[in-house]
């Protein structure tokens, strides 16, 4: 089938088997490899992307479900330059092997939209679907906390 969607700001029109997994279409057909596959069964969160602004697991989505949607991966997350969450993850040591990071970045970015001033506990809850085997999460939580502050400042300036 023919599917059209906006991927990281760019129009995509593809003729693919609509039953393919979204993660494969993004990675193999669109060449956007930010969504990673860690389990293929919805357990690890590495493949998370934003679909119309909501966090979705692209390993559990079919290509056809992207039709007409706005899909954002970690590669297209920031509008002009990296998203504050991405900067904070890099600055504060939330990145080790980095394989879980794109999934964490989009999940956290969406979470901060909903909850701009979270507690550490809320951050931990929000990230509970994103496994990381390297960091022990401490610095990831630090980074999301810090990103919240960066976003609040940006927001404050904008008003």
């Amino acid at each position, binding site marked *: 089938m023919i599917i059209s969607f906006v991927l990281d700001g760019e129009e995509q029109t593809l003729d693919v088997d609509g039953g393919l997994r979204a993660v494969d279409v993004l990675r193999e057909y669109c060449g956007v490899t930010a969504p990673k596959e860690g389990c293929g069964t919805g357990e690890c969160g590495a493949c998370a992307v934003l679909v119309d602004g909501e966090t979705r697991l692209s390993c559990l989505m079919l290509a056809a479900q992207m039709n007409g949607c706005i899909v954002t991966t970690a590669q297209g*997350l920031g509008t002009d330059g*990296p998203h504050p969450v991405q900067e904070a993850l890099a600055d504060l040591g939330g*990145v080790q*092997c*980095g394989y879980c990071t794109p999934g964490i970045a989009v999940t956290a970015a969406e979470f901060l939209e909903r909850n701009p001033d979270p507690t550490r506990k809320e951050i931990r809850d929000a990230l509970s679907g994103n496994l990381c085997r390297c960091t022990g999460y401490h610095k990831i939580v630090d980074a999301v906390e810090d990103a919240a502050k960066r976003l609040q400042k940006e927001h404050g300036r904008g008003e």
Partner: protein
Amino acid sequence: MLSTQTIGSRSRRFDAPEKALGRERFASDEYPESMLWAGALRAGVPHGLLRGVDTTQARAIPGVVAVLTAEDVPGENRQGFIHWDMPVLCGTKVRHAGDAVALVVAETRQILAEALLAIVLDIEPLPVVDGLDAALAPDAPLVHDLETGNVLKQASLRKGNAQAALARCPVVIEETFFTPQQAHCFLETENGTAYMAEDGTLHMTVSTQAPFRDRFEIGRALGLPPDRLHITAPFLGGGFGGKDGSTVQCLLALAAMHAGGRPVKMWWSREESMLAGYKRHAARMHFRLGAEADGTLTALICDLDYDSGAYAHLGVEIMALGLEHSSGPYRVEYLEANGRCIYTNNPVAGAFRGFGVAQVCFAFEGMMDRLAVRLGMDPLELRLKNAIRQGDKNGVGVVMTGSTGMAECLVGLQDHQFWRSRDEWVQSAPPLTRRGVGISAVYNGMGYGRGLADAAVAKIRLTGDGRFRVYNSVSDMGQGNSPTFVQIVCEVLNQNESQMELVQPDTERSHPSGSSSAGRTTYTYGKALIQACEAMRDKLLHRAAMVLMADEASALSLVPGAVRHTSSGRELPLAVLAGMLHPEDRVCIGEAMMPVTHDMPDGGESFRLGFPHLIFPYAAHLARVEVDELTGLVTVCDYVAFTDGGRVLNPQNFEQQVQGAVAQGLGYALWEDCVAENGQLRTTDFSTYVIPGSGDLPDIESHAVETEEESGPFGMKGIGEVGMNGPLPAVASALLRMGLPMIRAPFTPERVLKVLCGGNS
């Protein structure tokens, strides 16, 4: 003068921004043009005679390029870089359910899956050797046809007469401990791509911890000359030891040999990784510890059995490290350590952070806690009293000549408010909740140890536009060795990070520098790199002297982006200098080898490789733990780690390593267990094999105890492993102090509840 001091400062990792943006390309991100997919059919039966593999139907499926069996494997069809007992494809016998019996190459993933299903196996089942007891039974079926039954290797270490010494001890403690098989669960599963070029060179991009050694492993297994194998290893999405040794490599190379020059991709699913990937050895450890009435340790006798699973992999070396570390970071005068590495039909065990040591730390620290209880002593005092110090002999008789910060780590804990306030915290437990504060003292030999040259060759290039390119040749699986290399170059050459380029291992561009393992990467390659940088600095100053008209190079210095005539301030930009130099002259190479000990215990000669060690990082951990008396649920509320890794080159990276290792260690303590029933894995994915998530762990406080390791680059040692060893014994220590003597990890609610109700774990 501009200062670019970076060693010792908390700086952002060089690789972090690209990774955070999702732009870093891992091996799994490669989808070369016109590529094929390869996949293995797994036996599904844990033990059996392979009577036949019928591939007719699979071959007939359109889009199937090749269906290969053992008959198609050239070379020795054996993998395993020391013991060589694991076939690439099984020919006659199946030894575990994850054994590969056929390999399919197909146009698409769908066709591949279809073809794998269409292969018909004829396997005559054999009785299953499902664990240590079954393997050691007198009439046990043989996994390999060894004269020693299922015992792959039996060995003993002795220091003095421990039997006689133990008999003289006024206090003797005895216990048996059990640890499970643990899975690495790196998020990027085993994968790679490969193609055979027209000239017969096989090019492979693979998620591997040992690209240089892979050439020999693939070459020998498949009969290819190693110099015809070109391997590149981009950043790994985790490794932890599970990508040390061939995973996809031999299968992938075989597939590429049958793909008519087209590239082939192999990427194991999570389920395949659980089934066929390497695991941490399950262990049974019987300990007898003798001490004086004042708590001075005297003698230890222990018997360690490691379940190697179906193949040897690094089992013998892992057992050797278990024996070496069996008496803990303490002075113990008499030692008798007996080890066996045993074949079963369980998943194959191999290297995993804490290489054989994570297991024994549970046992010797369990003994220390029991001894403290018996003597009515403070458990921290007891540890401090016996802690090994510089100049002491360790358990196997090696004199600790390097930095030895065990006592300092313990003193750090002693002064910590969580330790000081432990009684109040325990007493303020809510109803139906028990609380305990546990501690552990651990260590982990770093480097390959004696008998296996631990060397590295570092290379750095001044590029044509005046930047510096670092050719990392030890894989970065996330631990951050390569960004630290960038820091080292910035420091020695006084340059800014913006001047740097970083290349990941490539057997045609970088030089052999060993594997990414044993906590050795930054130490060994770092030392070599310092040399390369010093040579580069001297070279650049000498070459610049002509232009800047200085009589001596010492009149010049390097500043960011330029060479400066120090007194006049005249500068020669590096980009200009580079243009004057021949490309071959813009390269500097340095090499380093790790020092080894010459002290050997009795019995150690029987290990050929990697024993004993000279340099050890140390750590003391504390866990505040709660147990729900109704459910047996264990919660770790707070965690503190003091670590002696020598000098800290980057505090951020240091904490990352400690926190990550502690998280993995807490998983080992509380949840992780590869359950196999009758040789069949029951924990097949992330829903049945539980690794900690963000909600399961507390914040993890990390403190560095900076001792100076004189042999190391800028005084550092490696801390990749030691943090893994502390959590299991620290949590066990807390539980013991609540009256819950746990001897079997992980401490699941069921097991804890059983002990709460007066049973045995």
